[in-house]
């Protein structure tokens, strides 16, 4: 899928549920793939008894990776120019996250290529923002 400047408007939105009932196993999968083996994310005994959290919780980068899936589904493969944001709240096993992109600008870069700028917001099932960010991507 590619986005076309002629079909885009500031204010357009794209929303996806990027994870429904996050499992501890998926968090472990992320630990293994990313190499971030901090036991806070995979070791319930350490997370609760030593660190004092109610349970293990997701890596911030897992939340960002889940958000990135929504962004690339929207803008198409190989189109991202930039992607970034802030980790706003912890994500726990059982959470369901919804990621939203909103078009905030449509412009051309110095070479004349079309660029869309997106504002990103990922919220949990209680409406709490867990990640907010920005992305830019090439459009046709």
């Amino acid at each position, binding site marked *: 899928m590619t986005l076309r400047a002629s079909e885009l408007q500031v204010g357009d939105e794209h929303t996806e549920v990027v994870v429904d009932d996050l499992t501890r196993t998926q968090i472990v*999968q992320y630990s293994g793939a990313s190499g971030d083996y901090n036991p806070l994310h995979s070791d319930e005994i350490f997370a609760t008894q030593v660190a004092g959290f109610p349970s293990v919780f997701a890596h911030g980068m897992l939340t960002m990776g889940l958000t*990135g899936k929504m962004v690339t589904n929207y803008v198409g493969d190989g189109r991202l120019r930039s992607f970034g944001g802030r980790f706003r709240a912890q994500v726990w096993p059982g959470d369901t996250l919804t990621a939203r992109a909103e078009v905030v600008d449509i412009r051309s870069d110095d070479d004349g290529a079309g660029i869309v700028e997106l504002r990103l917001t990922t919220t949990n099932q209680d409406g709490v923002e867990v990640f907010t960010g920005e992305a830019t991507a090439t459009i046709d």
Partner: protein
Amino acid sequence: MAVQRFPIELGHIMMFARSVGDPNPIYSDEEYAARSEVGHVIAPPTFVQAGAQFDPDWPLRPRIGEPWFGSGRNPTGTPRSADGGGGGSGAGGGGGMARGLHAEQHFEYHRHLRPGDVLRAETRPGKTWEKEGRRAGKLVFSEMIAEYRDQDDELVITARSVGVRTERAPDAAGAGSEEPQ
């Protein structure tokens, strides 16, 4: 992280895409990818973070024969830190992560990765600033810039991460306010 050699591998990309729940065949199916606009398998947007796998000194990976701060016979494999830091990440645990939290992450893509690339990452510190937090006292933010260059020394991805350290451990049960993870 300082990584001298980060080979971009198809199987690693596939596993990483699975871990973020992304079934897009552009991350695993070479035939599909060859027919796509991009023309080859690429990596998901946050993939370079997995370069930690190739950092020999990465502190958040257990090492053979060395104590690890996760649970085994005991809830933690290392003594609690002398300063009593309780709520932080791996307090006193050799991870260098006591009360250090990942606050922000930003990537700029100069081109997209493909299997067969071999990256090298050079990191340098960026800005540092302070903010008064509501629950954790003074928050000290610091930036780290990582430049990922390919086998031809071309810049492929620039990554900027912001870490935050707190004066005292935030309330562990409180999610949804200023303290990130």
